């Protein structure tokens, strides 16, 4: 416990821990000291001078070292000048006056200075209505300016800092919050001041401009409308939009977000999603979200979304009614019984997956998880328990990251681990190639692709690294699927689990899977099993019910089992005697898989319905409906329940909350959890999103629930350790091609956002410059990899004779493979 210091602010006594800044001490007792440059998440700089207050300290007699008393009270000596509340730490007996005549005059005058050249843009400014400068001027500003209006300085009003962020130079008040965010929090110093005085300008010094995946956050903390997002520019006035709490569905971090919606004439009078804003959850995403979460929401409103059920008639997909589609599907499933297979992905919510599992169990069929990453039974058993928070990790904690490029796979975890490392946590990175987080790590373990599990098994015995792991007070292991398929990652998970087994159930200890999808963890918790050989599934099953997955899009070879695509059947496959399975697809889009389906059931997007996701940290979090459903689409759990009802199996198909109640009653790790509990909140620090926008930015306050970390399942339910299979070691003529994840890929949830297109690019592979030279290739040229034409990009961090193939970028790759690469 740190030492407590007692001081008086505006007559109120407050006790805070030593080192607290005056501005924060005041905030704790509800006194707002206006600030522009100070932000509770960043180091203070004291640049804007808006927070100047009168500070008095007790007079100490130099001879005796005693506090001088006057009329029975300590004598207080006030400084001749005001002090900045944002840089001055509190001290015992301090007296602070934030609203004295002197302090008020200063606040008024600083605002007057700031407004000398601030344009009168409020009516057109995107920040207008949620603008700290506006609010503080109203609260503290002078009624009239003494400066001459004609002498306002003018500057460029439309400067693109990058594809995503626009700068209005006139509005900037040079608080440097954006620059400091990029330097201190994001760790990507791509913004800087240029020149000085009135000519000061914010510039980007990266190519392409503002090359950061956290750039959107700068618009939240900008205290004026200088930085705006290209996505929302002039979209709506802040007060016109409605807000709905949600959970980002793009990665396993589960960032809490708020969806702002508005009815819009441009969209034909529909209620549409205008912007995604972060919602505070200090245990998950603090007050930040990445650019993918902020800008890749357009898939939910894409015009190609499925709106009605479709069924195959004479070889073609035709519109049918829901009743007909459900009857058809239920009939086929009831006939198939144990020959029916449910194939779902972690894109679905807990409720959807629970109902699908119940349906599969009811039929006696299998519930399979569509994934290329295994080990979920181990994260369920040895995952991080309640009370875990990256923000509390520092000295004494060891964090091991294996086979994961967190910057691309889970950007907010990247931020949080970086911060943990800066607080003194020991960060160990094990990967076959250099990743961005290595800059902040204490130890780097390098292995060859294929040796992941073996390396981790031997890690504890290594000299320094081993000691850091075994002697750590807390140990968290994050493992991913960088360069791995299902087998490799399952084996890796088993090796990682060995390290944390003895610590199971201790807060801030455990295994975390960096899953490719938002709710993969939830699927594992609910008993879904991964499938290694999809081809065999399609060969054996009579009916395959695919929800939220696109196996045929990811691997076109699978189509050989489906007759509608006669043209694509290779000769040898048609000899199979087993008839092709009946395929039911429940989807948002007409994916490659949906094109082959016998029945397509349109599902609702995450923005249109209620539900919950389980994050990689095993935190169940609720999302709420924000916009009306597209066409006749229905929520996944509703569709499943309605199918089940057709053949007499009773599932909850009306309220997501009731599905959760059922889950709580039957699934061990969900025991006792209810929607009400998930919606509970507690006071969080720093205080954001209230009237004091100038303090934390426009991040939303969390009023809709912080979520609950699930209980651990004491015994692993699955097979767990599977170490067989030798690493692939190609010969001289062949290459090792391994899958990696990129933040912006060509998957449907990202590719539908036009803004991100420039950052995504086309299909490509990454090679070491030496490897490329061997092939006689330069960057940008085309290669052929197993029949796919790709662009070559050079990256010196890639091992030699290895090709990195980004997932969902046009080349099917499930796991590491031996490939032939040649110049095309």
């Amino acid at each position, binding site marked *: 416990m740190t030492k407590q210091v007692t001081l008086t602010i505006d007559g109120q006594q407050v006790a805070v821990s030593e080192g607290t800044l005056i501005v924060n001490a005041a905030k704790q007792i509800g006194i707002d000291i206006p600030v522009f440059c100070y932000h509770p998440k960043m180091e203070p700089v004291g640049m804007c001078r808006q927070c100047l207050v009168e500070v008095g300290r007790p007079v100490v007699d130099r001879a005796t070292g005693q506090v001088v008393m006057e009329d029975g009270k300590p004598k207080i000596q006030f400084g001749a000048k005001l002090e900045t509340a944002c840089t001055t730490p509190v001290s015992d007996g301090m007296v602070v006056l934030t609203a004295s005549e002197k302090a008020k005059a200063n606040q008024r005058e600083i605002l007057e200075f700031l407004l000398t050249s601030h*344009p*009168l*843009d*409020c*009516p*057109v400014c995107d920040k*207008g209505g949620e603008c700290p400068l506006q609010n503080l001027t109203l609260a503290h500003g002078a009624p*009239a*300016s003494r400066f001459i*209006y*004609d002498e*306002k300085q003018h500057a460029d*009003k*439309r400067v693109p800092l990058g594809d995503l962020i626009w700068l209005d130079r006139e509005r900037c008040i040079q608080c440097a919050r954006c620059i400091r965010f990029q330097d201190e929090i994001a760790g990507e110093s791509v913004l800087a001041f240029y020149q000085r005085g009135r000519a000061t300008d914010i510039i980007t010094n990266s190519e392409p401009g503002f090359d950061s995946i956290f750039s959107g956050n700068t618009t939240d903390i900008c205290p004026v409308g200088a930085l705006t997002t290209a996505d929302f*520019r*002039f979209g*709506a*006035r802040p*007060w*016109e939009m409605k807000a709905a709490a949600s959970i980002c569905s793009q990665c396993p971090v589960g960032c809490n977000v708020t969806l702002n919606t508005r009815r*819009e*004439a*441009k969209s034909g009078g529909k209620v549409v999603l205008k912007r995604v804003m972060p919602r505070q959850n200090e245990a998950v995403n603090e007050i930040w979200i990445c650019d993918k979460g902020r800008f890749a929401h357009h898939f939910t409103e894409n015009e190609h979304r499925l709106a009605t059920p479709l069924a195959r008639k004479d070889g073609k997909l035709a519109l049918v009614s829901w009743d007909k589609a459900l009857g058809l599907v239920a009939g086929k499933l009831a006939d198939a019984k144990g020959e029916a297979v449910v194939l779902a992905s972690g894109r679905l919510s807990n409720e959807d997956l629970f109902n699908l599992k119940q349906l599969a169990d009811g039929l006696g069929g299998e519930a399979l998880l569509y994934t290329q990453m295994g080990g979920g039974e181990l994260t369920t058993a040895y995952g991080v328990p309640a009370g875990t928070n990256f923000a509390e990790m520092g000295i004494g904690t060891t964090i091991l990251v294996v086979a994961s490029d967190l910057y691309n796979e889970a950007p907010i975890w990247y931020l949080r681990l970086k911060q943990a490392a800066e607080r003194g946590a020991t960060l160990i990175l094990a990967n076959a190639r250099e990743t961005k987080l290595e800059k902040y790590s204490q130890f780097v373990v390098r292995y060859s692709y294929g040796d992941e599990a073996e390396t981790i098994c031997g890690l504890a015995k290594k000299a320094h690294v081993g000691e850091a792991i075994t002697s750590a007070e807390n140990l968290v292991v994050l493992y991913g699927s960088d360069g791995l398929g299902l087998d490799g990652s399952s084996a890796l998970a088993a090796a990682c689990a060995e390290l944390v087994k003895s610590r199971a159930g201790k807060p801030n200890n455990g295994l975390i899977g960096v899953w490719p999808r938002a709710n993969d963890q939830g699927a594992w918790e609910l008993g879904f099993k991964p499938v290694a050989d999809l081809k065999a599934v399609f060969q054996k099953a009579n009916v395959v019910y695919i929800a939220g997955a696109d196996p045929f899009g990811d691997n076109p070879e699978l189509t050989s089992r489906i007759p509608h695509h006669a043209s694509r059947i290779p000769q040898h496959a048609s000899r199979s005697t087993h008839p092709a399975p009946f395929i039911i697809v429940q989807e948002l889009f007409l994916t490659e898989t949906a094109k082959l389906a016998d029945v397509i059931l349109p599902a609702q997007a995450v923005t249109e319905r209620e539900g919950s996701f389980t994050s990689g940290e095993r935190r169940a979090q609720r999302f709420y409906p924000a916009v009306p459903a597209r066409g006749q689409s229905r929520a996944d759990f509703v569709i499943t329940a309605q199918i089940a009802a057709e053949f007499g199996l009773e599932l909850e198909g009306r309220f997501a909350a009731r599905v959760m109640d059922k889950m709580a009653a039957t699934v061990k790790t969900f025991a006792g959890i209810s929607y009400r509990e998930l919606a509970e909140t507690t006071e969080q620090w720093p205080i954001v999103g209230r009237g004091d926008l100038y303090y934390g930015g426009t991040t939303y306050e969390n009023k809709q629930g912080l979520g609950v970390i699930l209980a651990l399942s004491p015994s692993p339910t699955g097979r767990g350790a599977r170490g067989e299979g030798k690493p692939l070691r190609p010969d001289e003529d062949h290459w090792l091609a391994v899958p990696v994840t990129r933040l912006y890929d060509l998957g449907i949830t990202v590719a539908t956002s036009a803004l991100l297109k420039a950052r995504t690019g086309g299909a490509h592979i990454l090679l070491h410059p030496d490897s490329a030279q061997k092939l006689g290739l330069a960057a940008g040229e085309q290669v052929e990899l197993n029949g796919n034409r790709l662009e070559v990009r050079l990256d010196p961090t890639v091992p030699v004779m290895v090709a990195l193939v980004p997932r969902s970028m046009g080349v099917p790759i499930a796991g590491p493979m031996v490939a032939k690469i040649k110049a095309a």
Partner: protein
Amino acid sequence: MRVLEPLIELRRGLWTTLRSMFEKQVTTQYPEHKRPVKARFRGLHVLKRYDNGLEKCIGCALCAAACPADAIFVEASENSAEVRYSPGDRYASTYEINLLRCIYCGFCEDACPTEAIVLGDQYELTFTNRRAAIYTKDMFIEPVPAAGKPTPQKTGPGMFTRSVPEMKDPSD
């Protein structure tokens, strides 16, 4: 006497009638004759233009925010030098007022930072259905002045960059 009383009353009444025949008329023959409205009369809204034809409305939606009857709907879009409707970055791509809801209080005029919306003299409004009571931008916008060009205009880069006209005298 009782017999005469009605006669007296009758005479008094007829006298009033007779007198009023020679007084100045207070009614007008509407609609043939229309009485001019008072200077501060609040009738149908007009969206004004600058002399060069650019629209004064910048789509800020402050009128919608001020409207106590929630009758106004504004949606903005971005101007560019090639396609410019109003000065500055933003213009109203949709501007609708539900005249069944409007109470002609004039708060929208007060809220407007560019004096784009003005309650005019027109008061002859009839609708035959609710949909027709929602007037759109083209029904409010003033005709292009003689010296101006219709919108959208093609203007040079760097021209008309400010949404709100600069004030010479802040007390103005």
